[in-house]
């Protein structure tokens, strides 16, 4: 009995010492007690696959792919006709507000023919401005700062020449060019087209315009009711 007890307590102490407590930090892969069907040979998002030569599971669409159900809008001179339209680009899309990589419409490229277009081709309302503010704060304010003066956190870590939205150069750029800069980047800025949907990008353009207006507005721009709320000097 004595030997049994001795052995028993030695075993318990041994297990406790070796196994350690719950939540202990460890670089070792978790031990799977019942791994039944935990790992299935299907390709999940961002997972590797030995089936393909490069080992990458998710595949890129072939160049020139058009999503099923989308009309491919005609490029070329036909686009010029919509320049004066109330809501350019959107009217031509079979899926308004949505776009895809090879779509040559103004909505997707910011271009009308070979030139930058001007105007926001999605409906501008309070909801879009909120979306623009949220996406701007996440993606743009990091470098350009929350007010767009080019003084975001990266400027404190040695990044010079970040664009200030309140420069005449940028205030004067058409909306389509701002949209293109967000999509494809410019100079040292990389493109954010992969992170932001078409609507997100136009929402940011609208919000940037609001930021610019906030710095350049005049009392004359306000309605009489709004003027009445201003503090008097």
């Amino acid at each position, binding site marked *: 009995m004595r030997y049994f007890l001795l052995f028993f307590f030695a075993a318990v102490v041994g297990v406790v010492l070796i196994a350690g407590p719950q939540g202990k930090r460890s670089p070792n892969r978790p031990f799977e007690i019942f791994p039944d069907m935990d790992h299935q040979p299907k390709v999940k998002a961002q997972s590797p696959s030995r089936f393909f030569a490069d080992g990458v599971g998710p595949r890129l669409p072939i160049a020139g792919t058009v999503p099923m159900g989308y009309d491919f809008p005609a490029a070329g001179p036909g686009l010029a006709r919509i320049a004066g339209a109330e809501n350019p680009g959107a009217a031509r899309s079979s899926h308004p507000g949505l776009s895809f990589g090879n779509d040559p419409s103004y909505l997707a490229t910011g271009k009308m023919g070979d030139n930058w277009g001007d105007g926001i081709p999605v409906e501008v309302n309070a909801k879009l401005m909120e979306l623009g503010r949220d996406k701007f704060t996440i993606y743009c304010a*990091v470098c350009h700062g929350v007010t767009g003066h080019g003084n975001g956190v990266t400027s404190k870590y040695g990044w010079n020449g970040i664009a200030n939205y309140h420069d005449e150069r940028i205030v004067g750029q058409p909306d389509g060019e701002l949209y293109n800069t967000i999509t494809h980047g410019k100079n040292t800025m990389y493109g954010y087209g*992969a992170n932001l949907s078409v609507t997100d990008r136009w929402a940011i353009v609208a919000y940037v315009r609001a930021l610019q207006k906030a710095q350049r507005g005049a009392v004359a721009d306000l309605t009489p009711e709004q003027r009445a709320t201003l503090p008097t000097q």
Partner: protein
Amino acid sequence: MANIFPKWTNQLPLKVLAGAALVVTALTGGITYYFTPKYTNVGYQPVQPVPFSHAIHADQLGLDCRYCHSYVEKAAHSNVPSTQTCMNCHSQIKQNSPRLALVRESYKSGKPIEWVRIHKAPDYVYFNHSAHVNRGVSCVSCHGKINEMAVVYQDQPQSMSWCLDCHRAPENHLRPLQYITNLNWKPEDIGTTQKQLGQELKDRWGVKPPVTCNGCHR
């Protein structure tokens, strides 16, 4: 007639019983304590190919989670950022750091960095990130204070019973949508308690998390 069993065997059944009881107790205790994701998974902190620090990027620099995990609000899978996301800044900042050599190499070759996955639901579980973050469940509820981790580890067991704890009582985790990625936020910051706020949001949004099998298994 001589005794067949010597006298010491009188206590043998008792001793065997006591010994068996000890072993069974120890085994039950051991299995309860060790055979659970609370032991096997919590604390898993693998060495990553690039020594990326969430503490620096999310806390010190104040990047929003979504700057890198862009699709968490739209997709079931919360994406690990592509190398370009790293290069958005590191083409200008610390562009010669030896710790980023693998990032530059990956950007040049187009071959993804092979980050080590930490949180892994079994393949028969269909967890949807967007469904949770768009209904007021913060990153911190399932991942812990990632913004304070220099090296990320698993903070919560993420077992099925753990999922169900919240699916049965979501009011313990709901918060207003604008604070989803603010991992330091507390309901007390806006002068309320989790219980009160959670219940209010649950009623307002009509949150009824599925507790049947096909909520998560298909």
